[in-house]
């Protein structure tokens, strides 16, 4: 790792729990405008985004999203069909080349316009798993059960949900969700409050290298380590109570001694599995934003974790923080980004 790169700005929508009548492009446009104004930058050395065609049910979500950027004259740009956190990774790699100094990264998702639970089924092995029709929550419940069987209690899950929702209520960008009530199971052992809410939203991050980062921010959040790892797809060959790939990525990214961690946990038990895999000490503040359990604009959720973790450093309130993103069923793919003042 030769070149110092920092998160110098972060912007996100005030996420909504229902369709607010905006298209994906309309969700994204104000965020791009805001981050351009915040940095004073109108052109970037590289631009990269993350989105998912299946949320709109149409090919090329990213094509019209490009209209928000003002790609004229033409820009150097790419896209991942993954969470925006991986777009950030691609941009970080690109900045290592040394010929460009700034990058714009964004992710967006309008989850309210379809049935996310069923859409995510299409991500599964199309021959052996998808035809069985397991939905996202049911698969998460399998993992939650494996986790509980390894010696944890349902109350541990409720505590995560309660803390996340309370934190979300204090976060103007997250949803206002009530304290967990005594509801039935969504899919046992998960209750509705253990599952991330349907959310529409978008987020953007600006990365800058070296002196350019110092010019753009009084408190740049330097990326000290960033790594991501994928593991086996089939749930049957994984120990679902643990996250091997998160542990591996955390090790490679140097995830030690952080004060704050923002984890891409879409279900209560995922936070607990990730805490263990990443090796977070008990005094680490986890998801002070409320995390995905308080706002989950799919394809921006992971990028928001890095943005939120960086914001602590931007505000001068922490020295070392961590942002995490996940992809695939039951935390199959994990990205860890360690930031430092």
């Amino acid at each position, binding site marked *: *790792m*030769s070149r110092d790169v920092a998160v110098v700005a972060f912007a996100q929508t005030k996420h909504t729990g229902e369709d607010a009548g905006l*298209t994906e492009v309309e969700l994204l446009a104000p965020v791009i405008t805001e981050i351009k104004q915040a940095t004073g930058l109108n052109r970037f050395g590289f*631009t990269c985004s993350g989105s*998912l*065609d*299946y949320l*709109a*049910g*149409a*090919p*090329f979500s*990213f*094509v*019209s999203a*490009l*209209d928000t950027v003002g*790609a*004229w*004259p*033409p*820009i*150097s*740009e*790419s*896209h*991942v*069909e*993954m969470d925006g956190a*991986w777009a950030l*990774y*691609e941009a970080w*790699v690109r900045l*290592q*080349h040394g*010929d460009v100094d700034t990058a714009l990264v964004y992710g967006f998702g309008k989850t309210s316009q379809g049935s996310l639970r069923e*859409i*995510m089924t*299409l*991500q*599964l*092995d*199309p*021959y052996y798993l*998808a035809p069985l029709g397991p939905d996202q929550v049911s698969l998460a419940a399998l993992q939650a059960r494996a986790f509980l069987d390894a010696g944890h209690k349902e109350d541990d899950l409720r505590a995560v949900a309660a803390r996340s929702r309370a934190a979300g209520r204090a976060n103007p960008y997250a949803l206002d969700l009530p304290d967990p009530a005594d509801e039935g199971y969504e899919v046992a052992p998960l209750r509705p409050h253990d599952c991330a809410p349907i959310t529409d939203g978008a987020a953007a991050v600006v990365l800058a290298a070296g002196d350019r980062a110092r010019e753009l921010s009084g408190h740049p959040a330097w990326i000290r380590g960033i790594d*991501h*790892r*994928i*593991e*086996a*797809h*089939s749930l049957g060959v994984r120990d679902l109570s643990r996250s*091997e*790939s998160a542990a*591996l990525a955390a090790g490679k990214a140097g995830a030690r001694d952080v004060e704050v961690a923002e984890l891409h946990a879409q279900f209560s038990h995922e936070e607990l599995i990730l805490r263990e895999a990443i090796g977070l000490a008990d005094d680490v503040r986890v998801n002070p934003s409320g995390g995905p359990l308080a706002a989950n604009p799919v394809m921006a959720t992971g990028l928001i974790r890095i943005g939120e973790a960086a914001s602590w450093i931007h505000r001068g309130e922490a020295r070392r923080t961590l942002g995490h993103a996940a*992809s*695939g*069923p039951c935390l*199959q*793919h994990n990205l860890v980004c360690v930031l430092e003042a």
Partner: protein
Amino acid sequence: MGNPCAVIGVGQTEYRTKRTDVSIAGLVREAALRALDDAGLTFTDIDAVVIGKAPDLFEGVMMPEAYLADALGARGKPMIRVHTAGSVGGSTALVAASLVQAGVHDRVLVVAWEKQSESNATWALSTHPPLSPTIVVGAGGYFAPHIRAYMRRTGAPDHIGTLVAVKDRQNALKNPYAHLRIPGISREMVESTPMLWEPIRYLETCPSSDGAAAMVLASEDAARRAPNPPAWVHGTAMRSEPIFFAGRDTVNPQAGKDCAADVYRQAGITDPRRELDCAEVYVPFSWYEPMWLENLGFCGEGEGWKLTESGATALDGDIPWNPSGGVLSSNPIGASGLIRFAEAALQVRGLAGEHQVEGARRALGHAYGGGAQFYAMWVVGSDRP
């Protein structure tokens, strides 16, 4: 450009209408194993995997990297899925190269694929999202008006497209992986086929193919240890512009010109026709050869069709375009760009077989996508830059 990067392995599947003998995983693995074999490596030697394909709606498998991680030996490794419309195969190669150029990895496996027989691409391209314009009639319907505008602008005679259709299919007869291998292909044969989207006839358009292509990209150290000659990356560039706005030149898009200028600058090329030995350029409809000849600076504006007509772009011409038969002969959409990049590498490695351009030392790989708005290009050469 960062650290040196080289192609040390190339693998392709046979391109066919339907590869019912393999699953999607089997298809990508076939290309990957051939690339590894060329590089003298196994999956365990690979640091990271980058995968690309066109829209997930084409097969109905969403974010397929999750399912393909096992088949591509990615367990415990970083894996990235790229999607930039039709240019994706090229962009995927560039993202993989970027990992090596950044000094993050030494050996990266890059794979791109499409299994068009799993569904219907024209349908997948013709959805009606609310409040958005729609392409409605697939790619041909979208690009035909741009071709007509080109003809009107340059006064190109009607038969130029036919010449490209024949030339690329003649080249395909020398490429064992090519999908369309039509013995005795001729102008008469092309002209006798139905008009699909004026002026594009059936044999002037690309086929729908199943297929995958893969490369192993390596750092200088790793390239020095490769058993076969490497193709060194001399320049890489991507450019994008918005799809619709007043005043946009859709016939000769600025993003294509800028992308070419960037990649030539990095490679030290000022006269592409003379300084490149061949080019693998994304030509899904015959007329895009003369259009891209101009866009990529191989001739002046309005001169592209004359270059094609003169035979300069034929395998025995002074600047062969698409010696492999190109997209007109094989089109697994998501892989089509990567195939261009890989074929350019094969040429400068001297490993292109029967369609080898003799003595090729520098070649261009090109891909475009969306409404002719996304571009990915690289220049590769036999010598380390």
